[in-house]
């Protein structure tokens, strides 16, 4: 492959690549994100390829293993383009039929179509599916248009065009001004304006300057950064290159979780491909601008998503944060000026540059521009990744895009912002989603996890869950976080075990405040948030645990009893085998009984009963 030595050289090569795409050739696009691969999608991809080869149809159709399409609930997902025909829950045996009927004869296959749960109507095209209708997928939408392992696919949709544009006609300071004007705010959690960060790094004294991509996505229930890295690694590289050019940096790092093997593979390959074309390396497109990127795999520590801990980890030390009297933009990695943004932020950069700050500003709310990708998970019908304009309401996301709560149960709360965030109850569902509104509600945008909870979720247990997580992940350096979070968890443990005491809620409140005030880094500073927000909105549930010794949601083991309902039990015997303590007695086809002395509340009988005859009290 030849190196591109001028921006014009690049544009020529790009139009060559665009011309080589045959628009008449049908693309069978199979989602091969980690979510769908977990369904066994690789076999499906191989199956399609083998079938096409066997029937000698290579000239008419292609199989494209693409990045994540977002609708994980319905995987494996297959898109047929042109036509945008959307097939869901596709199995290996469906492959020959799809080729025969849909690709060759233009017929749709009814049983593979998505059925609208409200109207019962079968939907043919992807953009008509309720899950996709309200989304604006500027970033995620590119995933299905490309094979992430092909740089030419990315070039064909205009990729690296924004880089060529800035290298040929824009001064570094003008790039920064454009990003500031667009008001692109950091997608990693804090929402700090990216342009200001770039500007400070550019103006800081020190050499070299570093540009880093934070891909240490650790919030439980959040996987959008992984999907971008897996599905469209070049757009992240392009964003970093533009940032590096603007800042005046020649060295970059991508710090990525080792638990994301596919993301590591794809981004590694993307760097090699970009280097071969001369898009990464020395004198990019023949200009004075040189930039190279290294990949660093994380060691599995949540705190390393924090900037100063991340730098320590790249330097080969334990990932402990330090006090930040001096900003990373002045002294970050190896004590040099460093600009750290997360994956989604970098992925927004080419978009801002190619479409312009004015266009970008037209999307979103007054102080939060553009789109945000959320991982919509938990007790929700349509689990998946959604990209929505800032300002959309929680209700629209959960009930229109997400399709509401499974089994017709009642919505209780939505948790945003990961372990540093909070739980938002139903009365605020009509609040617009943006950086500032979520903070007002006692939660935060965070990196984009959105976990839906229903009436069967215990809010005290959830608060305990997050504290347990943070206690495990606390690096142990500062006392308020190391000891304080532990002590709060001890109190929550005892509340969940039925030993809660009068005054526990108040103790949690003042301790939370003290930990927030006294901790060194953001992990400790925001650690009490899940407890404080659940107390704020669900105080009655805490009180039920402490005063009445009851868990209203039926979750906390010490406070519940399982019973067999004499009216609904038909003696099917299904609960017999799973019971680990032989607590269930009774003959087949006769009413069963449960021995409370033997019962250990494991929930096995409850889980298997098909007639709702096991009840929790």
């Amino acid at each position: 492959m030849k190196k591109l030595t001028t921006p014009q050289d690049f544009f020529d090569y790009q139009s060559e690549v665009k011309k080589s795409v045959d628009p008449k050739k049908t693309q069978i696009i199979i989602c091969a994100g980690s979510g769908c691969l977990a369904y066994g999608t690789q076999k499906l991809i191989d199956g399609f390829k083998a079938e096409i080869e066997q029937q000698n149809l290579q000239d008419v159709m292609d199989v494209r293993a693409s990045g994540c399409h977002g609708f994980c609930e319905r995987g494996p997902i297959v898109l047929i383009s042109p036509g945008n025909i959307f097939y869901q829950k596709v199995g290996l045996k469906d492959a020959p039929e799809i080729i025969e009927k849909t690709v060759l004869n233009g017929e749709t296959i009814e049983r593979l179509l998505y059925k609208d749960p409200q109207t019962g109507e079968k939907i043919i095209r992807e953009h008509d599916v309720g899950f996709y209708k309200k989304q604006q997928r500027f970033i995620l939408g590119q995933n299905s248009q490309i094979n992430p392992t092909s740089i030419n696919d990315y070039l064909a949709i205009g990729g690296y065009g924004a880089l060529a544009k800035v290298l040929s006609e824009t001064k570094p300071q003008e790039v920064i001004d454009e990003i500031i004007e667009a008001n692109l705010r950091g997608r990693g959690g804090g929402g700090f304006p990216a342009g200001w960060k770039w500007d400070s790094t550019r103006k800081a004294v020190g050499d070299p300057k570093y540009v880093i991509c934070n891909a240490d996505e650790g919030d439980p229930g959040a996987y959008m950064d992984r999907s971008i890295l897996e599905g469209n690694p070049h757009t992240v590289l392009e964003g970093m290159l533009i940032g590096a050019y603007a800042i005046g940096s020649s060295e970059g790092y991508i710090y990525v979780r080792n638990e994301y093997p596919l993301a590591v593979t794809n981004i590694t390959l993307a760097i090699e491909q970009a280097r071969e074309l001369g898009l990464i390396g020395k004198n990019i497109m023949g200009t004075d601008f040189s930039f190279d990127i290294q990949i660093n795999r994380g060691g599995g520590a949540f705190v390393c998503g924090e900037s100063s801990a991340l730098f320590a980890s790249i330097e080969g030390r334990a990932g402990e944060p330090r006090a930040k009297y001096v900003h990373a933009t002045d002294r970050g990695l190896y004590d040099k000026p460093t600009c750290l943004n997360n994956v989604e932020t970098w992925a927004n950069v080419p978009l801002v540059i190619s479409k312009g700050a004015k266009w970008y500003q037209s999307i979103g709310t007054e102080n939060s521009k553009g789109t945000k990708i959320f991982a919509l998970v938990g007790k929700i019908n349509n689990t998946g990744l959604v990209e929505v304009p800032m300002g959309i309401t929680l209700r629209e996301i959960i009930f229109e895009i997400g399709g509401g709560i499974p089994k017709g149960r009642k919505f209780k709360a939505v948790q945003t912002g990961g372990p540093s965030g909070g739980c938002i109850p139903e009365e605020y569902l009509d609040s617009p989603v943006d950086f500032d509104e979520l903070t007002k509600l006692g939660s935060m945008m965070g990196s984009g996890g959105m976990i839906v909870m229903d009436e069967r979720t215990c809010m005290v247990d959830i608060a305990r869950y997050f504290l347990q997580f943070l206690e495990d992940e606390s690096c142990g350096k500062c006392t308020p976080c190391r000891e304080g979070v532990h002590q709060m968890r001890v109190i929550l443990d005892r509340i969940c075990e039925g030993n809660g005491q009068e005054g526990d809620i108040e103790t949690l409140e003042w301790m939370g405040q003290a930990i927030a005030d006294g901790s060194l880094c953001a992990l400790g500073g925001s650690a009490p948030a899940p407890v404080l927000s659940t107390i704020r909105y669900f105080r009655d549930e805490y009180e039920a645990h402490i005063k009445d010794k009851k868990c209203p949601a039926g979750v906390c083991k010490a406070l519940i009893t399982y019973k067999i309902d004499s009216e609904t039990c038909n003696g099917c015997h299904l609960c017999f085998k799973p019971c680990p303590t032989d607590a269930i007695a009774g003959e087949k086809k006769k009413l069963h009984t449960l021995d409370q002395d033997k019962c250990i509340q494991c929930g096995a009988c409850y889980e298997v009963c098909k007639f709702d005859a096991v009840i929790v009290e």
Partner: protein
Amino acid sequence: MENTIKAIVEKYDSNKGFLVPVLQDVQKELNYLPREALDLVSKFLKVSISQVFEVATFYKAFSLEPRGKYQMALCQGTACHVRGVPLIVDHIERTLEIKDGETTEDLMYTFETVNCLGACALGPVMVVNEEYHGKMTIAKTDKLLKKLGKEGNA
């Protein structure tokens, strides 16, 4: 072992900044990080043994104990949690008679709960030696353990 570790360190140009990836690769080769390996990394990378030990014990991904033939990683993400993972944790601990993070005496199973795997649509999800098992229940866990037991002893 000496040659393996030397080769890994050289792959990273003996650069001290790559201590974490070096340990990751060593663990991949040896299944865990025995004391001898830590000493060799310290020697070849010219990093003090105390720093190697600090890093090896700080990050979750590293194990100083031998690990089982089947490494069961049960996702502890919030989505899996609200869908009932705690019941499955209890069940596995009771069945295998080990606690979270431990290995059975016969070195057959290592069971650990891990941070979010990002396969939330499949929650509760468990990965056994890189193979995903989705929508886990107590009953499905039993079936899986039975199957692994048969395979493992075959």
